[in-house]
């Protein structure tokens, strides 16, 4: 990291994988062990920072009704993964910054996003968030806030969502680490594979992962954000409409390429591309490209689906129910 670092409300950004093998079975594969050790480096990195809160965007937590924000102060449960239940159970207790969660909810609404707070005993916090919390913040040294990934959201909505996080941090004067819990390529094995024989599901996936890692190592976060649609087509099983985590992360971190990037580790986990990546705000941009994606400030997409066409007219008086979607 030779670049001069700069101060920002978002002190650190990370991309972290969330499969439970890293927590419960890392000793079964040398690559998994390396990824787990990289989480320890993230922990050390966080300890050397002055953050107040960790904000987690988990691709393992889908939502349908807008964007859900975990706000329960001390959620506690014994978690079992739907699929990898044989690996064992994960008892956890988290500390959530519910005050920040509420600020974020207000910030989302200010930007016309549909959001809501989640404050229920026994709410099923997703595997990815639990695994990450256990590996970097098991002692709850820093309070966290976890946000969902809406299955229908596309880029505009997700970028605005990221900007709302930044708004909330600035309003509360808090310094944060922003984390996306996501694999790069997400193609898992579809048959039982002995852990010692784990490998990338596809060479093409691996090549795209390497391209992304090359960019991120150079701090080109906005570049990978702009390439998300291509990456979704090339290296993702299309379980959802779009590959969103880099849209969110880049928006939270300021939408530029001004970062020092570090790839702590990259290995296959159950066939997926599991990378531990860190980004720190820096003064010198790796590249200064002309981006072709839009930069929305507020969400103006389909909102009135429950109401009549009259309800859906925009302030300009147009009665086209979709006129508000022009962002």
């Amino acid at each position, binding site marked *: 990291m030779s670049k001069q670092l700069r101060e920002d409300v978002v002190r650190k950004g990370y991309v972290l994988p969330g499969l439970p093998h890293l927590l419960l079975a890392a000793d079964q594969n040398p690559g998994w062990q390396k990824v787990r050790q990289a989480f320890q480096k993230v922990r050390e990195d966080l300890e050397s920072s002055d953050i107040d809160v960790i904000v987690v965007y988990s691709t393992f*937590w*889908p*939502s*349908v*009704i*807008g964007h859900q924000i975990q706000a329960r102060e001390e959620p506690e449960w*014994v978690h*079992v993964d*739907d*699929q990898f*239940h*044989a690996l*064992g*159970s994960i008892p956890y207790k988290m500390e959530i910054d519910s005050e920040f969660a509420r600020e974020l909810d207000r910030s989302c609404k200010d930007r016309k996003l*549909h959001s*809501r707070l*989640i404050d*229920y*005993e*026994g*709410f*099923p916090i*997703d595997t990815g968030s639990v695994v990450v919390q256990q590996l970097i913040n098991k002692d709850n040294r820093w309070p966290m806030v976890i946000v969902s990934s*809406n299955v*229908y959201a596309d880029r505009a909505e997700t970028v605005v969502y990221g900007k709302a996080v930044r708004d909330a941090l600035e309003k509360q004067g808090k310094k944060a680490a922003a984390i996306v819990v996501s694999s790069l390529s997400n*193609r*898992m*094995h*579809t*048959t*039982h594979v002995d852990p010692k024989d784990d490998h990338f599901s596809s060479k093409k996936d691996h090549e795209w992962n390497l391209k992304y890692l090359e960019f991120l190592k150079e701090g080109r976060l906005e570049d990978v954000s702009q390439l998300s649609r291509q990456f979704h087509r090339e290296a993702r*099983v*299309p*379980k959802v409409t779009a590959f969103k985590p880099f849209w969110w992360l880049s928006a939270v971190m300021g939408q530029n390429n001004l970062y020092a990037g570090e790839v702590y580790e990259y290995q296959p986990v159950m066939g997926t591309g599991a990378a531990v990546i860190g980004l720190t705000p820096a003064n010198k941009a790796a590249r200064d490209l002309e981006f072709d994606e839009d930069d929305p400030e507020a969400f103006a997409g*389909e*909102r009135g*689906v*429950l*109401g009549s066409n009259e309800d859906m007219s925009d302030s300009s008086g147009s009665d086209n129910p979709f006129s508000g979607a022009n962002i």
Partner: protein
Amino acid sequence: MAKKGEIVAGVLAPHPPHLVYAENPDQNEPTAECGWETLRWGYERLRKSLSEIDYDVLIVHSPHWRTQVGTHFLGVEKFKSLSVDPIFPNLFRFHYDLTVDVNLAQGIHDEAKGAGLVTEMMTNPDFRVDYGTIVSCHMTNPDWDKPLVGISSNGGARYFNMDVLGATMLKLGEATRKAVEASGKRAVLLASNSLSHRHFTTESEVVEDMSKEHINNHNQYLWDMRMIEMMRSGKGQQVLDVMTDFTEQATAETDGGSLTWLLSALGVPDYPATLHGYGTVIGTGNAVMEWRPGQEARA
């Protein structure tokens, strides 16, 4: 010679948590004023219909227990916990206490494995049963006095395509039928899925305000009606033939394979299904339908 088991009914039993919410059972924490009556009355008719037959076990295939590595089966006899819907936690926080027919689950597992499918028994006692399984079972049998077999849905439609998943589900259905026959038990099968499945992404202030409820789009409605008419007409094979198109064009929840599994287990019915009810839930299309092998539809 041991008595041969049989599938005595097959049901398309959708699982929107809104239905349990509106029923206000003691097990669910939130309470509602009303809502989604056409579907809840449909389930009421289903329960009345099933009360006329004797059965031992419910076998439910759920899209909300999604596994990528093959098909998994609940393999613990007792589960007791709190199920909170990750999408609609405001509506569904259900205290469940259920019994699994592990022997039959193992039997289906073994048959499926023998047919070349990737399978796994779920034996972790801390596992939380998915809300799809719970909703379909509760609406079918709110007394919870029958054991169940829980089967996961495989993500093959996304990893490969719907045709690949369909081929797998046809095998799983056959394996289910053989295992039921070998068990000597009388089983009711539940395919726990909606038909069209594009949701609204906002929720009205009063969630059960039925003035806000309607199908998400006309295309979905047309597809739902087409599928229902085929099922009501005993055209099981035709339903399978269009399953890929339906799934893709109506964003249908059949992408979990539940309906294909059910039709296969029933031997691809050429007899009519009974439509007990159709309704929308937050824009999705849902039908409660019953096949009774060896009998004509009664509605």
